[in-house]
């Protein structure tokens, strides 16, 4: 069987590059005469670097390709045994162009139907465009779920001479990377959506507020903007659009729209009271509209295919498809696109490949959301059904939590994050979230009491009611959700002084099973604090629970067991 190689595509978004895709690309171009392209995020991040070989008989995928000659030769000879057979592919139209061409190749984007949505929109009356977006049922993808068309209508109705459009690309939720992937892989589609919005709303200044931690995304957007300018696609009804990329400086609260505007103005990113809403008075008092990257990326699809076709996918509460960043304890993490209304079970078991029974819960919406236990995985994913469970859709981070993770520790982690990220304006958020964090610290360190648990419930309500913006109003959600579904784990910590998942270092000991131990000495060699004696007994007063011995043991004879008396952590309780 001989197949001719026409071209080779290598995934070179941040994940791919981190896994070594750049070297793979260089090696492939040295050894192969066919063109080698660096394309966007192919989605199967667990198998990076990914290489797709396009032949005259269809394309063949390879995963986990290293720059070693053995791997490169296997790819070029299309070795049967090294081929990568994808599980369920990404479904849906939002990401259909990812991986087909180099992300900044404007000709290829046009050949694949790019900018036709913009041309259609420009041929329409701008109010008709707003109606079209309203009819599509698209809701904001940043987490709030506000109907996009309604927001557009609010800005379009403003009569001020200068209006501002802001793309929120701050993606501060730790554990989410949908927006990064879109900007890296489909910069033109995001920009096209923004230009359509500019036409429909009459805005003539455009800002993209992007995290400074996303250098590849910023680079691709800058190249894309320059090429668009050369082609004149940024001229909307005779006016030239000014597109400015602003790099955020690292503050989670800047995802809140009024805080984001303050940051754009060069100030501390503190939220303010609304009204006036940004669509009335935003960036330096000008009417401004803020939407998320994924929201903008959906717009060209609505114009290309019509509102009806877009709304045909999804549920009444959420139309279209949604991107999720699937990560955590799951064999096949990655960037997935699924129709709204799909169940969590389908995402986690079918797409993510998690074995049934291995998963304890899933966290949606990051630090503002909540956990959903595995027993409720038949819940359809849309804005309203998740809220009814005390979680939120959020921007699309899905963190799978395995059976071996402690839920109390997970809640502590989120409060650690939010109490640091509180801007300090509202007392309940500033002090209350810190007190909640301290209570959770005590519990995970085995020093908690039932009073701490009662305190958490009481303070959670107060922080929610006493805070101005979304950060404070949602910060207690992870604690409340955990208390609702995993109260027994709290009880185990405070009453029985045990961590059922054996994760909390202060509540476990390390022990070597004398029966299975082969006395190979690897654990002794790997211990950084000399806590294991020559006759293979762990001194748990010295041991730091670093897991090095457990990782080193070839026969799994070393394990964590309930205990923890005598554990002294080097870190102080906050």
């Amino acid at each position, binding site marked *: 069987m001989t197949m001719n190689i026409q071209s080779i595509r290598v995934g070179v978004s*941040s994940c791919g590059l981190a896994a070594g895709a750049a070297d793979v690309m260089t090696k492939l171009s040295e050894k192969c005469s066919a063109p080698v392209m660096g394309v966007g995020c192919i989605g199967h991040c667990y198998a990076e670097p990914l290489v797709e070989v396009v032949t005259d008989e269809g394309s063949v995928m390879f995963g986990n390709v290293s720059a070693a000659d053995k791997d490169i030769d296997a790819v070029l000879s299309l070795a049967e045994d090294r081929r990568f057979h994808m599980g369920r592919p990404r479904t849906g139209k939002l990401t259909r162009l990812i991986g087909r061409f180099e992300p900044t190749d404007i000709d290829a984007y046009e050949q694949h139907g790019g900018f036709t949505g913009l041309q259609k929109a420009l041929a329409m009356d701008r109010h008709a465009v707003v109606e079209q977006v309203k009819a599509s049922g698209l809701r904001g993808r940043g987490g709030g779920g506000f109907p996009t068309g309604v927001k557009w209508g609010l800005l379009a109705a403003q009569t001020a001479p200068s209006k501002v459009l802001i793309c929120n690309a701050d993606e*501060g939720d730790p*554990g989410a990377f949908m927006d990064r992937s879109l900007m890296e892989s489909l910069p033109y589609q995001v920009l096209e959506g923004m230009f359509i919005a500019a036409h429909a709303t009459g805005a003539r200044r455009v800002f993209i507020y992007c995290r400074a931690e996303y250098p590849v995304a910023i680079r691709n957007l800058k190249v894309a903007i320059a090429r668009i300018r050369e082609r004149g696609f940024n001229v909307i009804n005779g006016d030239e659009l000014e597109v400015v990329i602003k790099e955020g400086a690292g503050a989670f609260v800047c995802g809140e729209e009024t805080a984001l505007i303050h940051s754009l103005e060069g100030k501390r990113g503190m939220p303010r009271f609304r009204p006036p809403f940004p669509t009335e008075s935003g960036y330096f008092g000008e009417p401004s509209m803020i939407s998320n990257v994924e929201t903008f990326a959906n717009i060209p699809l609505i114009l290309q295919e019509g509102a009806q076709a877009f709304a045909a996918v999804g549920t009444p509460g959420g139309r279209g498809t949604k991107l999720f960043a699937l990560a955590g304890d799951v064999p096949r993490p990655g960037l997935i696109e699924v129709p709204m209304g799909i169940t969590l079970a389908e995402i986690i078991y079918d797409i993510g490949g998690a074995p049934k029974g291995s998963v304890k819960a899933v966290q949606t919406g990051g630090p503002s959301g909540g956990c959903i236990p595995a027993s409720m995985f038949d819940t359809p994913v849309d804005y309203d059904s998740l809220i009814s469970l005390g979680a939120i859709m959020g921007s699309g981070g899905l963190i799978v939590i395995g059976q071996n993770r402690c839920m109390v520790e997970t809640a502590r982690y989120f409060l650690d994050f939010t109490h640091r990220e509180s801007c300090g304006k509202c007392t309940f958020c500033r002090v209350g979230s810190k007190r909640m964090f301290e209570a959770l610290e005590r519990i995970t360190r085995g020093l908690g009491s039932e009073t701490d648990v009662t305190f958490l419930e009481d303070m959670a309500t107060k922080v929610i009611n006493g805070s101005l913006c979304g950060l404070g109003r949602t910060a207690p959600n992870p604690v409340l959700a955990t208390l609702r579904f995993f109260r027994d784990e709290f009880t185990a910590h405070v009453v029985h002084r045990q961590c059922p998942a054996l994760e909390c270092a202060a509540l476990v000991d390390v022990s070597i099973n004398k029966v299975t131990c082969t006395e190979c000495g690897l654990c002794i060699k790997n211990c950084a604090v000399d806590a294991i004696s020559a006759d293979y007994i762990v001194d748990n007063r010295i041991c730091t629970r670093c897991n090095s011995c457990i990782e080193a043991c070839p026969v799994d004879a070393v394990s964590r067991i309930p205990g923890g008396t005598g554990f002294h952590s080097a870190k102080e309780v906050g």
Partner: protein
Amino acid sequence: MTYSCLNHVEPERRNLIKGLQVIQETEGYLSEDALLACSAYFGVPPAEVEGVVSFYAQFKRVKPGRFRVSVCDGTACHIKGSALVGDWISTELGIRDGETDEKGLFSLETVACLGCCSLAPVIAVNGEVSGNLDRRQSLKIIKKYRRQG
């Protein structure tokens, strides 16, 4: 002290954050001088400049080492044991989060999320990301940079 890198930034208040970012990019951190220079250049009181600098996580007031080690503690990395990764590297380097070692070779910081969640746990050294780390891998990376130093 003058900062020529500010020349590309228009002296308007809204560009204060950009100005600070540009200086930090060239100098590696923001010194007292840098803050005063920004105050004069953008016409913003020093206290307000300090307020902006202390608000954002990106801005560093301590001179970083030649190799900046960022340990990701995003949700996915945390679930996959980033606390252990942080401890291993901290022990190996003998410095804690936010510190720079005596030779000025390494500095260590914990960051919120590097966006490479499917490779968790990850670290970045001077922006170069490595993923799927265990103890041996983590220490190998540190040793690689130590040899370069």
